[in-house]
């Protein structure tokens, strides 16, 4: 317990400044808030809270949180130097979050998306049953509404305090992605510092497009576990976003300042497939023979439509504008113990 004398000058609170781990500059925290948590000296990407991410990526006032009330349960009765319930409570008070993921519906430059965002400050962004459930619901909603899903990950992996039930979240979050494939609904994964372990070994590696922030730590095994097991030091630069790009596991490294516009571009390029009732005709496929013709017709103008006798209404963009009857979605019932 530090002793404080009533007359001593109060030092500036120690959290007013943060030292940049990349260039050692002392950065004023207020400044970090203004720069989307980028180091003004060297551009280092500091980790962001889920709130900052929402403000960064989504149109103002467009985000509606879903399933905010989900809360973890200590199913195992886990205790290391503290009990799991104790750790949960400490993280909840520290972050104001109930668990490590927030999900909801929002808009990115007008385009509706189902988006899940991790907050690393909540128990290292670890994935337990609540994170898995929220992401599964996020994907299922994307599937039902035929809107793209986006997940911004920042996680150490599966939450050890939930044992194999945490491991099973890998399968729980991955299963809906197989359904989205069948239904033609896109999923974009955004990997931020750090994305490792069970999160990388499930949905995060399965984006139709995978983006990563510069120099983010991304890898399967934590460096400590890896060097303990393998008994060798890991090479420099191994497990960075750049390493994954070089080895073909991410599509692009996108600096934070360009993330929103990049996502918006991708969402326009990769809309959900137009229809899923088994009646999809060639005319509705942008690159089917007639689709290509109608594309031409659109460019040339209405005159062509009369001469070749086809309807040249603009193609449906598929962004949630149609009711659908897709994949049955079993909601888990009363799941809690």
């Amino acid at each position, binding site marked *: 317990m530090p002793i404080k004398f009533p007359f001593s000058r109060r030092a500036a609170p120690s959290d007013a400044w943060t030292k940049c781990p990349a260039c050692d500059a002392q950065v004023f925290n207020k400044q970090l808030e203004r720069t989307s948590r980028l180091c003004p000296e060297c551009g280092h990407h500091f980790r962001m809270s889920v709130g900052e991410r929402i403000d960064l990526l989504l149109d103002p006032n467009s985000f509606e949180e879903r399933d905010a*009330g989900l809360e973890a349960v200590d199913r195992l009765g886990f205790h290391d130097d503290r009990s799991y319930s104790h750790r949960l409570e400490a993280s909840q008070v520290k972050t104001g979050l109930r668990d490590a993921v927030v999900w909801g519906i929002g808009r990115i430059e007008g385009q509706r998306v189902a988006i899940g965002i991790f907050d690393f400050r909540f128990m290292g962004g*670890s994935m337990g049953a609540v994170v898995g459930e929220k992401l599964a619901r996020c994907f299922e909603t994307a599937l039902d509404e035929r809107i793209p899903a986006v997940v911004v990950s920042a996680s150490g992996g599966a939450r050890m305090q939930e044992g194999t039930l945490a491991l099973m979240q890998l399968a729980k979050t991955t299963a809906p992605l197989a359904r989205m494939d069948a239904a033609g609904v896109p999923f974009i994964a955004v990997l931020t510092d750090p994305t490792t372990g069970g999160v990388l070994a499930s949905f995060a590696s399965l984006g139709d497009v995978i983006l990563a922030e510069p120099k983010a730590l991304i890898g399967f095994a934590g460096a400590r576990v890896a060097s303990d097991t393998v008994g060798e030091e890991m090479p420099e630069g191994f*497990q960075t976003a750049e390493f994954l790009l070089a080895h073909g596991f991410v599509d692009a490294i996108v600096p934070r300042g360009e993330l929103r516009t990049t996502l918006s571009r991708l969402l326009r390029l990769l809309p959900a497939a137009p229809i899923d009732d088994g009646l999809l005709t060639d005319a509705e496929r942008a690159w089917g023979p007639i689709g290509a013709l109608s594309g031409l017709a659109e460019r040339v103008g209405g005159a062509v439509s009369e001469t070749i006798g086809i309807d040249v209404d603009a193609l449906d963009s598929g962004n949630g504008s149609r009711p659908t009857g897709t994949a049955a979605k079993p909601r888990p019932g009363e799941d809690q113990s």
Partner: protein
Amino acid sequence: MSEGPLIVDAAPPSPEAIEAAWRRVQLARHPQRPRTLDLVPLIFTGFFELHGDRAFGDDAAIVAGPALLDGRPVMVIGHQKGTDTESHILRNFGSPHPEGFRKAQRAMRLADKLGLPVVTFLDTAGAFPGPAAEERGQAEAIASSVKLMTGLQIPIVVVVLGEGGSGGALAIGVGDVVLALENAVYSVISPEGCASILWRSRDEARTAAAAMRMTADDQVELGVVDAIIAEPGEGAHTDHEATAGAVKAAILSALRRLTASETDALLATRYARLRGMGAYLETGAGRIRPPEAPSLRRRIGRILHLPGVPRRPRWSEIWPSDGNDDESERGA
């Protein structure tokens, strides 16, 4: 999912619990415990091993191929540990590289194409964590394997033989029925790995093993494993043939049940099984706020209706970053 007590504040595992859990871990790792290739000839006939992932190489830590089970073809996939120094090295101690999981995926696709049921045997400490595995996409290989299994249009029976180690086990461990030998263990991370992260010492592996509740019995209680296959005598290592007989009977009974159901029902049940994994509470949507008063400027601003103050707060004001960026807790 099975009902269990809602524990409010857990205590550390008792010395007896630690002893019991560690005994199981040691039995699961027993050097004479039957491996996949010990059991395959005792359970199936005509096993034809497939090699290679058609992209990079062949990984001897995973074996796969078609075989006959009571005269009917099935696809067999399993981790394979070694028995002596030479085979330990060949099999990389049962820890697959990405090409192992990709070979397994190849075998699963073939089974799917021909309608063969898939039987998998889990026995690995975990997927290999080295640099070569990272370079070739270990995480992607596991993720795509799991995803593939969730959608296979054929019955899948999973048997945990020894160690069910984390993602490396789950990569071939998504099934319609998951069985475990009595002394098998299943965990999210190895007890040594868990101990080195949470207890900051590998010496606490025994405690971590108990805390993670990794024994087969615990897994049945958690709903991860559906049923236990009893082992002969002191354990499976004492009698491979009796073990194989018990495993075969369990696989046959599971497959009889599964092959009776329609594909759609099979897939819906598999999906629901996975969706139901894990416990959580669905509470009211109220938000937990950090105990912190609004700033003086905002409080005055609200009273005086200063321009720009009485507005909806930005999300970053509701959930701001802390000053420091140093959370060191990790998962697996």
